[in-house]
């Protein structure tokens, strides 16, 4: 790769640590904090953690390595990058990757807006003026406020991207990621020192042999890795475009994977300790009642974070000031996690537009405008958000498949020795990688997509109906439209992306 092409490269991440912090910002999102705890509770606590660790090694890390390597070597967004790696006939796969992450950006900006609103509510004390947190949430989510906060989120994300890689992405993530970790550590220490917190920790780490043998627990663990590490989304690929040639790939990728899951573990222990400690006094049903509170999804899976935790924060201490401090700290951390992921989605879409000949400024304005307009349905109607989350959440697994396919097409061993272990690599990775990316990842994709789609047939009697929120029909309908268009215009996409990245005289 790379022959005949050169970089239209003006900016790089200033150091290895800047790159790692920014990329960790992609990986650590709301999924680490609110989805992880809910899924652990739904899948038998400790029984879930063992497959979750295994899939970190055989899904997340190999795909993060692949994304770093493709981005660094091609210096292009996914359309051009996959065309160069897999061949010109497969540029549409890159377009799919960009489309899926951008479609997620539309509603993720809405979710980021919720975090801003709840942070403001917690910091102002407004969140504690009610005991009816479900009503509070329903009143907020059914009104026009989510639209305003969606606008604020996408506006500031675009502003960060407008300032560029070093002054925008790097500065923002250098501020937000350490702050997020410090807040999480403070919350962690407080949570594990609460009376009865040990019950939560016990549940969190105790495996049940019957549950661990359930194949659904394994598939949920794989799904959690696929959705919360950012592996296979194309976002890491977009940041890798800006890594210096001397930067390593495999060690940095391992740091992102393990760093991401470390944050999940920290957040999980914190939430389980808090919930067990503060709700045990209220719930006559004992452990089962507590587990029900953690695992219940609520509207658009918001139950634990936006409905139950605010209630628990009011019971943290007698002091309103301390409760306010911890609640606002939690929602600020959640906002930092969401925002640092949102900016990477805006960057991916922007970078793709740049590959298609747009100036950076024009591309950002267009993406922000599009992001705001196409996020409106999700801001105003939770059913629409749930539909998009379902359709493109499963779509992400296909994105991972396309990345793996492009490497198989290029030659797995050649890719490993020439690209991953090439110039700048600190650690040379062995032949295990050929097996992981060439065989294990494709098997996991096939199993996971089949499982989700077959399961979705059972959720809905009209499983074929493309206009229902969560079923088989809506996925196939929306995927078919998007894939057909990209396959039809593949020649144009590839030609434009590659031509715009050619530099005269190279």
């Amino acid at each position, binding site marked *: 790769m790379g022959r005949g092409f050169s970089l239209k490269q003006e900016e790089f991440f200033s150091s290895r640590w800047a790159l790692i912090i920014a990329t960790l910002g992609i990986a650590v999102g709301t999924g680490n904090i609110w989805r992880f705890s809910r899924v652990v509770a739904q899948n038998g606590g400790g029984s879930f953690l063992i497959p979750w*660790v295994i899939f970190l090694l055989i899904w997340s890390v190999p795909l993060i390595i692949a994304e770093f390597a493709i981005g660094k070597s091609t210096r292009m967004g996914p359309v051009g990058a996959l065309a160069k790696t897999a061949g010109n006939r497969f540029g549409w796969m890159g377009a799919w990757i960009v489309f899926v992450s951008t479609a997620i950006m539309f509603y993720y900006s809405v979710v980021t807006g919720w975090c801003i609103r709840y942070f403001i509510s917690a910091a102002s004390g407004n969140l504690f003026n009610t005991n009816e947190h479900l009503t509070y949430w329903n009143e907020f989510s059914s009104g026009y406020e989510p639209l305003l906060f969606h606008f604020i989120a996408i506006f500031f994300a675009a502003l960060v991207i407008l300032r560029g890689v070093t002054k925008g992405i790097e500065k923002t993530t250098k501020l937000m990621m350490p702050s997020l970790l410090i807040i999480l550590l403070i919350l962690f220490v407080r949570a594990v020192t609460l009376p009865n917190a040990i019950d939560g920790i016990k549940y969190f780490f105790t495996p049940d042999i019957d549950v661990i043998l359930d194949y659904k627990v394994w598939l949920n663990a794989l799904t959690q890795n696929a959705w919360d590490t950012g592996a296979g989304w194309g976002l890491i690929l977009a940041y890798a475009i800006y890594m210096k040639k001397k930067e390593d790939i495999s060690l940095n990728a*391992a740091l992102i994977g393990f*760093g991401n899951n470390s944050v999940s*573990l920290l957040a999980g222990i914190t939430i389980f300790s808090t919930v067990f400690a503060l709700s045990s006094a209220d719930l006559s049903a004992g452990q089962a009642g507590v587990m029900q509170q953690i695992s219940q999804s609520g509207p658009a899976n918001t139950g634990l974070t936006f409905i139950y935790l605010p209630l628990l924060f009011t019971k943290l201490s007698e002091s309103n000031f301390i409760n306010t401090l911890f609640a606002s700290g939690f929602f600020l951390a959640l906002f930092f996690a969401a925002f640092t992921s949102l900016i990477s989605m805006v960057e991916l879409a922007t970078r793709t537009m740049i590959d298609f000949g747009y100036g950076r400024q024009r591309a950002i304005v267009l993406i922000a405008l599009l992001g705001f307009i196409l996020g409106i349905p999700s801001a105003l109607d939770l059913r629409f958000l749930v539909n998009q989350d379902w359709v493109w959440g499963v779509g992400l697994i296909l994105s991972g498949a396309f990345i793996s396919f492009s490497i198989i097409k290029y030659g797995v061993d050649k890719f490993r020795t020439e690209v991953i272990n090439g110039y700048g690599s600190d*650690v040379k990775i062995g032949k295990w990688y050929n097996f992981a990316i060439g065989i294990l990842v494709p098997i996991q994709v096939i199993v996971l997509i089949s499982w989700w789609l077959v399961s979705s047939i059972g959720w809905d009697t009209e499983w074929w109906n493309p206009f229902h929120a969560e079923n088989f029909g809506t996925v196939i309908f929306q995927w078919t439209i998007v894939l057909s268009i990209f396959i039809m215009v593949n020649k144009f996409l590839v030609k434009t992306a590659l031509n715009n990245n050619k530099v005269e005289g190279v």
Partner: protein
Amino acid sequence: MSLITIVTMLIVAGIVWGGLLFFLRKAFKYEKIKQKNGEE
């Protein structure tokens, strides 16, 4: 706390947090070498 809970905790936290610390140490080591060699 039962033995199986402690073992699971050690395995999970050991691999995830231990792994993170292991890779961080390696990254610091290689970064130092690169800086010594004046690589840009």
